[in-house]
């Protein structure tokens, strides 16, 4: 099943082309990205039900112009040719000249060279995102919550959420005419449990470049979320130290994305903010480590035809057998670095600037089985799920707060749980300690990724189970 491009964007193309044509008389590069993203979020908990538009819903445009030195942009949400042209001139001419007159220098950029391209893309999904209508979706979510309260006395609250986002985008310039429509969905559950004294919560999301079928996964797995939360009530504090441990695919993805991935966003190379710049062609991980990022690498929430600057998505081999090959890059950073863009120029919305952002980032699987990996550990942990992670591209410090660790002693899980677990250390030390990878790849696109503390965008990340050594606290 597929959705077709929004009628609004189809209709908007004609006046937008006219604006591009008109502004091209004065500016040597003009492009417009148009977005008409729809989406709904359904949320049911023990005490409340909510239906609202999802946070990514938007309709608007961003105009990019070459101002003689670099690029200026104007975001707008209503097509009024006269107003837009006047505003474009204000931002790309009058403001630039005014700032120059006040002594502000501008970084000089070459002109974007484009090839003629006309393409469209529409993602496939099995079940329409609203196939059962609001009544059916609310009923299914209510059934999940109801069934859990019948079974689990320690459950204080369970929030079940289903959210769909249908992205519609167009990109128009003098040489490009691109269209895309893709649907991604998320179904997640948050369990809050209590033993009468303390509270614990657990969260698990199921995601995909898919339709309503994602909700099936929550329906199949909702009990696991509650059981996992109940386990946390008996969790002990970990004895801080250096351990051998196994990361589950969510934690592997967090390491790929947060610990290493942000450091190879090449706009950071332009600003000299990334240590990775000095490591291209050098060892950063163990021999068995292969890491990729790309809109074309896998099918997940960030699998698109073109990015928010009109560049086609790629499949970038970042680490090959432990050697850092390259990073990924947006259009303007690519111009500064003299390389080709990789289709990683993404915006939080049409209202925001494009930065180099990750798409689908992951470690490739290996050949081991999880059982063999556990057997190989004398004293350590199986780490599952995460609460947060923070990047440090300049100094490669790691801070990942993980949901829990299952103790392993003499090759066996003991049943003891520790939580929360904070993973800290130095990124290459951690990646060079990767010694085993399981033979399966699992991706997840729950939540959003920030650049620093802002610019939230949808990404997916993942990997196999990985055996690693590092500092846990």
């Amino acid at each position, binding site marked *: 099943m597929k959705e077709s491009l929004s009628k609004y964007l189809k209709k908007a193309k004609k006046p937008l082309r006219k604006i591009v044509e008109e502004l091209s008389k004065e500016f040597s590069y003009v492009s417009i990205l148009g977005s008409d993203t729809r989406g*709904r979020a359904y949320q049911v908990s023990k005490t409340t039900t909510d239906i609202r538009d999802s946070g990514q819903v938007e309709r608007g445009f961003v105009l990019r112009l070459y101002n003689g030195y670099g690029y200026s942009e104007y975001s707008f*949400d209503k097509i009024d040719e006269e107003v837009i042209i006047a505003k474009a001139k204000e931002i790309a001419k009058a403001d630039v000249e005014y700032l120059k007159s006040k002594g502000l220098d501008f970084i000089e950029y070459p002109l974007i060279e484009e090839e003629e391209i006309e393409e469209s893309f529409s993602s496939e999904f099995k079940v329409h995102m609203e196939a059962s209508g609001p009544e059916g979706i609310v009923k299914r979510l209510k059934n999940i919550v109801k069934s859990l309260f019948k079974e689990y006395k320690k459950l204080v609250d369970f929030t079940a959420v289903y959210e769909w986002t249908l992205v519609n985008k167009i990109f128009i310039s003098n040489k490009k005419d691109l269209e895309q429509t893709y649907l991604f969905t998320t179904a997640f559950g948050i369990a809050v449990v209590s033993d009468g004294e303390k509270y614990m919560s657990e969260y698990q999301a199921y995601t995909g470049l898919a339709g309503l079928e994602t909700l099936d996964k929550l329906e199949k797995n909702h009990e696991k979320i509650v059981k996992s939360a109940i386990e946390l009530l008996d969790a002990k504090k970990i004895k801080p130290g250096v351990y051998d441990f196994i990361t589950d695919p969510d934690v592997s993805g967090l390491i790929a994305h947060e610990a290493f991935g942000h450091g190879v966003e090449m706009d950071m190379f332009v600003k000299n903010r990334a240590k990775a710049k000095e490591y291209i062609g050098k060892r950063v991980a163990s021999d068995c480590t292969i890491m990729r990022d790309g809109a074309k690498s896998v099918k997940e929430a960030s699998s698109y035809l073109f990015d928010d600057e009109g560049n086609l998505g790629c499949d970038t081999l970042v680490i090959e057998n432990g050697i850092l090959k390259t990073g990924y890059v947006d259009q303007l950073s690519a111009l500064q670095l003299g390389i080709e863009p990789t289709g990683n120029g993404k915006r939080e919305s049409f209202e925001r600037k494009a930065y180099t952002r990750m798409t689908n980032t992951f470690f490739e699987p290996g050949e081991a089985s999880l059982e063999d990996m556990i057997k190989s550990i004398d004293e350590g942990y199986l780490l599952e799920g995460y609460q947060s992670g923070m990047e440090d591209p300049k100094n490669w410090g790691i801070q990942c707060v993980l949901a829990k660790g299952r103790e392993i002693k003499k090759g066996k899980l003991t049943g003891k749980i520790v939580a929360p677990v904070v993973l800290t250390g130095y990124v290459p030390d951690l990646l060079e300690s990767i010694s085993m990878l399981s033979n399966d790849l699992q991706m997840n696109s729950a939540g959003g990724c920030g650049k620093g503390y802002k610019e939230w965008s949808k990404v997916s990340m993942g990997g196999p189970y990985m055996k690693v050594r590092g500092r846990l606290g």
Partner: protein
Amino acid sequence: MIDKIIKELKGLKGVSAYKILNTKTSSKELFLIKDKADMLRGKDVEDILVTVYSDNEKNRGSSTVKLKKSMDNDEIAKILKDAVYAAKFVKNPYYPLAKKSDKEYENFNSSLKDMNETDALLRIKDIIYKDYGLDASINSSEIFINKKNKRIVNSEGVDVSFDQYEGIIEVITESDVGKEPVEIYTLNSFADIDEEYLEELIGRRLFEAAERGKASPTKKSDKINVILTGEDIRTFFTFYTGQASARAHYEKTALYKKGDNLFKGSKGDKLNLSLKAFMENSIYSAPFDNDGVYLEDVKLYKDGKLKNLHGSLRFTHYLDEETTGIIKNVEVQSGETTIEEMKKKPYLEILAFSDMFVDELTGDFGGEIRLARYFDGKDTFTVTGGSFSDNILEVQKKFLFSKETQLIPSFKGPKAILLKNVKVLGE
């Protein structure tokens, strides 16, 4: 547009009530690498959030949709019709909408009001890039000036509008005085161009970058006094505002009940915390929340006792509590201990976490240490790396608030908090 929407809503069957939040935003944004402009951006957008309510028996159903000015009548009609249909399947206990307030209000003053956005960008850029005389520099920065107008309309007669001004800066300071180049990240928002505040902030971040370059690794310690400072203190208190949230009490996820003394047996300072509708330089200062509830100050904790809950009209109504609306400015009463007194014994003063976390449900908090000052009883060193985590319910038994206060956007209170005998991980 609003009139068009109201007309459409009035003609729809099944609409019991409605609420419209209309936000117009005009922005200019300047992005710099070193001290050169990398990009200049502008923005003019308008969002219209419509919540339709459909009541059935004792229940209130609702559904919220986002409309744009570019939508034609047919599209608006279809979206609203679908919203009404969806609202029928939401069966929450009834709660009222905000009533028209007869209280007078005015737009808060900001120097951004009459300043051209491009001039405002320049003025802030000049503050960021002035010579602070430190061994550190600005790697890059982003400056955003947002001028907003909010209008809230509902079917109970509320129709209010007010302006908000917002400056946002992201600044990366860096230094290469040490073995390796280092950086410090900061993201701050403010409602006014307060030069003193901005200069103190940038100067502090440059100082921290210079110090981080010279810092040695944090040593592990099983028992040391930790001093929290700056913006991390604002983050620390989110646990207490979270525990006083009407929603958490309604959903039974709060650890305490109203009237409980959270600090029973505590040997440290007792908490006195209020929410302030208006706080100087805060982007959250507003006469009304997004429901149209008129905002007034509210005291949440008095001498450690949870006196009042806070929250939206819906959840305060469910609990039969006085409606406070959503207020995000926090004021905490300072203590009697001076920072000098806090520093008499060995301590670790956290100057910057990489990302401090606070779990509002459990009270767990901590983070990786980007920069700290360590006093071993004799000498003081700057240190980096390592981490600490603890639980607020434990540390509150003995914590002390500084006598010195700070006013940072959306927080007024102690400049430092002393946490006694905390375990720190390090080398």
